[in-house]
C-alpha cells in the first residue's frame, strides 16, 4: 500500500547530516505500521515526504502504486493525515472546519460528515467553535477530517501526544476498528514506545535519519529468549548454560538461552544434577528493550 524507496533528504548544507538517509520500507495493505524514533530522528520529515509537502533529494514514495512525487494529487485522494497538535481554524465550528477542509478533496455530503462526526463521538460539540475544544476533542476532529472522504491510507504524526489515558485507549480502539472494519492501512509516527508496541504490527526504527531496525514488534520478543531462574546452585546452572552456548548473569538471576533449543533441556539437566529449582519465569522482551539495544548497537558502531 505504501512504499518508501531509497528516500534521502538534506536540509541546508549538504555537509550537515541528512535528515533522512536512504530510507526504504513497505507497508502492506491493512497493516498498522509504526515509524519510531527519538525527536529529530527524521519521522516528521519522512511523513512530510509521504504527503508530498517535503521534497526528497532522491528516492520516491508510492501510495497504492501512485507516486507522491509525480502525481501528488492522485496519491492524496487515497490518503488522510493527522498532524501532531492539529491546527484548525479555531474561530470556526468543528462542522465548518470539516466543510472547509473536505472542500479541498472535492466536497463531502452533509450525511457523510454527520456519520463521521458520530463515529468519532463529537456530535454534541460539533457546532461549537474549535477554540472551546479540549485537546482530545481536537484530536477526534482531526481523525474525522482525515477520514473524510474515506481514505485507504492513514498517516498519523504523534496522534496520541497530549491525550489522557482514556483518550489514548479510545483512539487506539478507533485505529483497530479502522483497520479491522474498514481495511484502512495505517502508518503511525511516534516516539511513544509502549503505544507503538500495543498498536503496531511492524515497526521501522529511525535514528539520525537512518533506518536501524525494521521488523515485527511481536517478533522481537522471540529474538531474545530470556529467563529468570531461582536455583540453589547457580554455578551448576552456569556450567550447563555455557555448554549450550547461552549466557547467565547471576546478579540478575538471568539466563539467555539460545532460541533454537528448548528451555526444557536446561530444566531437566538441572533436575538431573540435583539442583533445586524454585522458579522459572520467561521474560518478555519489550519494544523498549529492542529500542535501547538498537541504540546501544548504534553507539558501539560509532565508537
Amino acid at each position, binding site marked *: 500500500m505504501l512504499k518508501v524507496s531509497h528516500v534521502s533528504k538534506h536540509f541546508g548544507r549538504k555537509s550537515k547530516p541528512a535528515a533522512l538517509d536512504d530510507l526504504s520500507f513497505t507497508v502492506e495493505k491493512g497493516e498498522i505500521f509504526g515509524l519510531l524514533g527519538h525527536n529529530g530522528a527524521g519521522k516528521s520529515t519522512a511523513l512530510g515526504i509521504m504527503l508530498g509537502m*517535503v521534497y526528497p533529494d532522491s528516492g520516491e514514495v508510492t501510495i497504492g502504486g501512485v507516486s507522491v512525487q509525480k502525481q501528488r494529487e492522485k496519491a492524496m485522494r487515497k490518503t488522510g493525515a493527522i498532524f501532531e497538535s492539529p491546527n484548525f481554524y479555531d474561530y470556526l465550528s468543528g462542522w465548518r472546519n470539516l466543510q472547509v477542509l473536505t472542500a479541498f478533496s472535492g466536497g463531502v455530503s452533509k450525511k457523510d460528515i454527520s456519520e463521521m462526526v458520530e463515529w468519532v463521538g463529537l456530535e454534541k460539540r460539533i457546532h461549537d467553535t474549535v477554540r472551546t475544544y479540549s485537546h482530545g476533542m481536537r484530536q477526534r476532529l482531526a481523525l474525522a477530517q482525515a477520514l473524510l472522504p474515506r481514505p485507504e491510507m492513514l498517516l498519523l504524526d504523534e496522534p496520541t501526544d497530549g491525550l489522557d489515558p482514556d483518550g489514548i485507549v479510545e483512539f487506539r480502539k478507533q485505529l483497530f476498528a479502522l483497520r479491522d472494519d474498514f481495511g484502512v492501512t495505517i502508518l503511525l509516527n511516534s516516539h511513544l514506545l509502549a503505544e507503538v508496541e500495543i498498536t503496531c504490527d511492524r515497526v521501522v526504527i529511525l535514528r539520525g535519519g537512518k533506518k536501524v531496525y525494521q521488523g515485527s514488534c511481536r517478533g522481537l520478543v522471540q529474538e531474545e529468549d530470556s529467563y529468570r531462574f531461582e536455583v540453589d546452585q547457580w554455578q551448576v546452572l552456569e556450567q550447563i548454560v555455557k555448554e549450550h552456548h547461552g549466557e547467565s548473569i547471576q546478579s540478575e538471576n538471568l539466563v539467555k538461552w539460545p532460541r533454537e533449543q528448548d528451555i526444557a533441556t536446561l530444566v531437566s539437566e538441572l533436575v538431573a544434577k540435583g539442583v533445586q529449582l524454585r522458579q522459572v519465569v520467561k521474560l518478555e522482551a519489550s519494544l523498549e528493550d529492542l529500542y535501547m539495544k538498537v541504540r546501544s548497537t548504534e553507539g558501539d558502531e560509532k565508537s
Partner: protein
Amino acid sequence: MIEFFRLLKWELFRMYARPRTYIGFAVFLLVEGLVLFLLNRPKVQSGMQNWIEQVAGGFDQFFSGLTLAFILVGGTVFLLGAPFLSLVSGDIVAKESEDGNLRLLLARPVSRLKLLMVKYASCQIYALSLFLFISTSALLVGVIERGWGGGYVVMTPEMPRVSIFEWDEGLIRFYLMPFFLLISYLPLTSFAFMLSCMRIKPAAATIITLAVVMADFVLANFPLFPLFKEYRDWFVTPRMQMWVYSQYQDIPWPQVIENWAWLFGIGLTGFVLGWMSFERRDIKS
C-alpha cells in the same frame, strides 16, 4: 473551474467568518469619522467653502454628500489603504503557514498552484469589498451630513483640473473609484502576497511591502530627487495613482489602459514569483 469556485466560496467564508476581518472595517470607519470631524472644524469649512465657490460656484450645491464622501474615501485610503492591504495580503499564506493550517490543506488532493490561486483571488475580492465598504460608508455619512443630491466636485494633486459632475453622473464616477482602486493596489497586494508565499513571518511580509512602497513613493515624488523625475515611469507608485483617472472630467482611456497593463503585469509577476517560491518550498511543522 467549478471546483475553483467551490474552493473560493469556502475560502471567502473562512475569511469573512474571522472576527479580525471586521476589526479592519471598524478601523476604517473610525478614520472616516476622524476625517469628518476635521472637515467640520470652522477654519476647514471656510477654506473648503472658498475653494468650492472659486472652482465650481455654489457651496451648498457642490459641497454635496458625494463631494464629502470623496474626501472621506481619499483621506482614509491614503492613510490606511497601503498598511491594511499589505497586512491582509502578507498574512494570507504566511499566517496559515505559521499557524499550521496550511499543512491540513496541503494534505488534501489539491495542487499548490490551485491553493494559491484561491487565496490570491480571495485576497483581491477582500480588497474590493473593503474599497466598496469604505465608499458606501463614506457616502452614507456624506448623505446624512449634506443630504441626497447636488453636484460633485473633485480635485486631487494628480489631476490637471477640477472635475465637476451632476449628481447622477457623479454617483457613477464615485462608484467607479473602488474598482480603479483595486487595480491600482494590485502591485502592493501582489508584492505582499509574493512575500507571504516565501518562508517568512507574516509581519515581515507586511513591513517589507510597506518599506518598498514607501521607498518607491519617496524616490518618485520627493523634491530632493529632481533628477529622478526623468525616470518617474520606472516607479510603481505613480502608476498606482491611476485610480484618480476615474474622477477626471473625461476619463483618459489610453492612459488608463497603459497603466492597467503595467499594474496587471506587475501583479501577475508578483503572483508568479510567489507561486514559484511556494512550489519549491518544503512545508514542515
